[in-house]
């Protein structure tokens, strides 16, 4: 049903205004008519009462003398009142003395009443008044007054009210149709604007403000709201567009990745952040002879050699938790059941928030390389052993030459001339020098071997051991060796000790007359520790700062500075084997500072060639 609630505002306003106007007019009309009727009745009552009194008073004589004519004449004056129908004068005994009737009527006389009475009936008014003489009732006057005057008056009034009502309503309707626009038009505008927005989705539409009232404020707020939505809508569109672009790019990248992965000779995989593998390339299936379903997730673990599995899983879980790259060598089972060594690497890909989104990895068959490495390691060990044996075997005759030439020079001093003693001295010196060279060569060979199963060592301990080995030289020179707190590093302690020992020994050797001061420190620099051994010695000409690291390179032929010139070469060999570098900063006379770096993390390659 089409109720008032659902009507358009325009009609609603019209109905409301018209209802109010007509209601008010009707009420006012009724009020006026009712009030006039009441007033008129009151007036009529008073008028007839005084008329009756006047006629009663004037009829007293006629009644007292029982003179109907005089009474009739008296009553005849009532002709002037057209609405008076009948007037009668009764004697005390109730007989009629005189009567007046309007010429056009023959109405009967109303009965006389004992008392003074004025009674409205439906169509007329009956008045009964006693006629008194000296305080004594002598008769009664009755009047019958027709009330059609009242009805006429009411009719006239009603017509007037109706006409006024009609004109007023018409006026109200006209005014409503004009004035309702003030309220309805802004609302219609607003409705049109909202309809347009909802139908077209165009948030650029604005409602026109037509007034400064609440509707105006509503339009303003509505427009502001639209502006806000438009801005957000634009932003959303941009974001959506970017997202679509990104998705397209990602899809392209994925396709490129798949194509690349499928066309590479290596085995490629990707894994979810939890470590479960969700992609293997074709090479994987070909190598394992298994289907994706058999090896995806954690199914690949069945292919790893049982001896490698635990360490592999441990390392993989460590990478998953820390986000550090995975780097592991292990054996994978081929389709024919043979295990082959592989190097597996995986790197975490992160999203814009730095969260790991996936892992991308490769498995490279390094079986031949591994076998060659093993052979090489064996050969290397054999070579080391040979070097020790050779060194040992060479030391013995050389020592005999050096020591016994010394003994001869001491014991048979008196039997030899100056030349003989000098020649023996050459023998002793030559022997000693050869023995030192053999030792140094052995140390140089050893410097090239990086051990396996690397664990970090305390470099302070290595330094202490080096200082202990040099205790005699330090005591003789009166040197002061100080050190800052030193870190733990991935380097065999024997190697680190050797580097410290050679550098400190170098500082002690190339000292000035002053008391040698040697300071060892370390700072963290990038992914490495940078150690420094600083002295206050004679310093090095920058021209030679590369040359001094050469094997058997000595800058001084002076016997004061002994040695074979291999100490720094050993340092360089050790440091470089661990992926670090060594250099010197110095100028003549101002001391020297030797720097060397040690990578913070354990060396990746577990074996090396001496």
């Amino acid at each position, binding site marked *: 049903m089409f109720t008032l609630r659902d009507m358009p505002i325009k009609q609603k306003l019209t109905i409301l205004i018209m209802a109010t106007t007509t209601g008010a007019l009707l009420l006012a009309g009724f009020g006026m008519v009712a009030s006039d009727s009441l007033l008129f009745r009151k007036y009529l009552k008073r008028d007839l009462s005084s008329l009756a009194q006047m006629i009663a008073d004037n009829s007293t004589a006629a009644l007292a003398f029982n003179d109907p004519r005089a009474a009739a004449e008296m009553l005849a004056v009532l002709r002037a009142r057209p609405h008076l129908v009948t007037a009668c004068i009764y004697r005390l005994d109730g007989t009629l003395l005189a009567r007046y009737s309007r010429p056009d009527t023959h109405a009967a006389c109303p009965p006389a009443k004992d008392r003074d009475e004025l009674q409205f009936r439906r169509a007329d008014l009956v008045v009964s008044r006693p006629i008194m003489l000296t305080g004594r009732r002598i008769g009664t006057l009755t009047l019958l007054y027709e009330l059609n005057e009242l009805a006429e008056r009411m009719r006239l009034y009603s017509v007037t009210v109706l006409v006024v009502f009609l004109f007023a309503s018409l006026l109200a309707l006209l005014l409503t149709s004009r004035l309702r626009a003030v309220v309805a038009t802004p609302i219609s505008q607003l409705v049109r604007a909202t309809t347009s927005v909802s139908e077209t989705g165009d948030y650029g539409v604005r409602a026109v403000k037509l007034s400064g009232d609440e509707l105006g404020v509503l339009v303003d707020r509505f427009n502001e709201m639209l502006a806000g939505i438009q801005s957000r809508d634009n932003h959303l569109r941009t974001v959506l567009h970017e997202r679509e672009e990104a998705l397209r790019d990602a899809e392209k990248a994925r396709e490129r990745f798949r194509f690349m992965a499928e066309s590479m000779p290596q085995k490629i995989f990707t894994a979810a952040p939890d470590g479960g593998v969700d992609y293997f390339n074709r090479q994987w299936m070909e190598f394992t002879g298994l289907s994706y379903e058999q090896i995806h997730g954690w199914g690949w673990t069945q292919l790893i050699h049982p001896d490698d599995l635990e360490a592999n899983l441990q390392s993989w879980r460590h990478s998953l938790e820390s986000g550090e790259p995975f780097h592991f060598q292990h054996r994978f089972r081929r389709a024919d059941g043979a295990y082959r060594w592989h190097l597996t690497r995986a790197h975490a890909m992160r999203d814009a928030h730095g969260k790991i989104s996936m892992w991308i990895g490769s498995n490279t068959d390094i079986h031949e390389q591994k076998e060659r490495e093993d052979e090489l390691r064996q050969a290397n060990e054999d070579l080391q052993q040979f070097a020790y044996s050779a060194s040992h075997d060479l030391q013995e005759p050389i020592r005999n030459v*050096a*020591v*016994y030439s010394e003994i001869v020079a*001491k014991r048979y001093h008196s039997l030899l001339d100056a030349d003989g003693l000098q020649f023996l001295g050459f023998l002793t010196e030559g022997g000693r020098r050869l023995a030192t060279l053999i030792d140094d060569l052995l140390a140089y060979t050893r410097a090239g071997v990086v051990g396996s199963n690397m664990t970090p060592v305390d470099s302070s301990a290595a330094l202490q051991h080096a200082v202990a080995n040099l205790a005699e030289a330090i005591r003789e020179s009166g040197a002061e060796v100080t050190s800052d707190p030193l870190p733990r590093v991935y380097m065999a302690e024997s190697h680190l000790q050797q580097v410290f020992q050679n550098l400190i020994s170098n500082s002690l050797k190339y000292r000035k007359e002053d008391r040698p001061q040697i300071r060892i420190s370390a700072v963290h620099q990038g992914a490495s520790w940078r150690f420094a051994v600083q002295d206050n010695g004679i310093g090095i000409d920058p021209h030679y700062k590369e040359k001094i690291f050469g094997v058997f390179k000595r800058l001084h032929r002076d016997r004061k500075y002994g040695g074979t010139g291999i100490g720094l070469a050993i340092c360089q060999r050790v440091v470089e084997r661990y992926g670090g570098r060594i250099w010197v900063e110095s100028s003549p006379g101002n001391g020297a500072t030797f720097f060397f770096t040690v990578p913070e993390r354990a060396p990746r390659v577990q074996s090396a060639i001496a």
Partner: protein
Amino acid sequence: MRRESSPPSLKLLLAEDNLPDALLVREAIKMEGLPLEVHIAPDGEYAIDLIVRAENDPDALCPHILLLDLNLPKIDGFEVLRRIRASDKFKSMPVLIVTSSDSPADRKEASRLGARYFRKPITFDEFVKIGAVLRRFLEEYSLL
């Protein structure tokens, strides 16, 4: 095998194939004035024979201390040392390895088998310091 004609009560077995070195050790002991009777075994096999005899024959030579070169003919020094450590009678005998080797592996193995290590120096003065080393070693074992 040569015997020293001195009154000492302690017997030292020197397993050394290089005579010049053996003489230097004897010289050092003499210079240090240690009351030691030096018996020289020129190879590993000889040294082991001597130990086996000492285990079985109460009258045979029974050394109190062993100075052992590693690079011995026939049977090398470590093999001799392992044989000694397996013997009930000699498993606690003080052993000083005297060698030209500076190999860390050798030092480690010597330490594992409970032997001291002395690397042969290349000057006479340094070499004869083995006398003082030996004295301290004997004192440690309460043999002096």
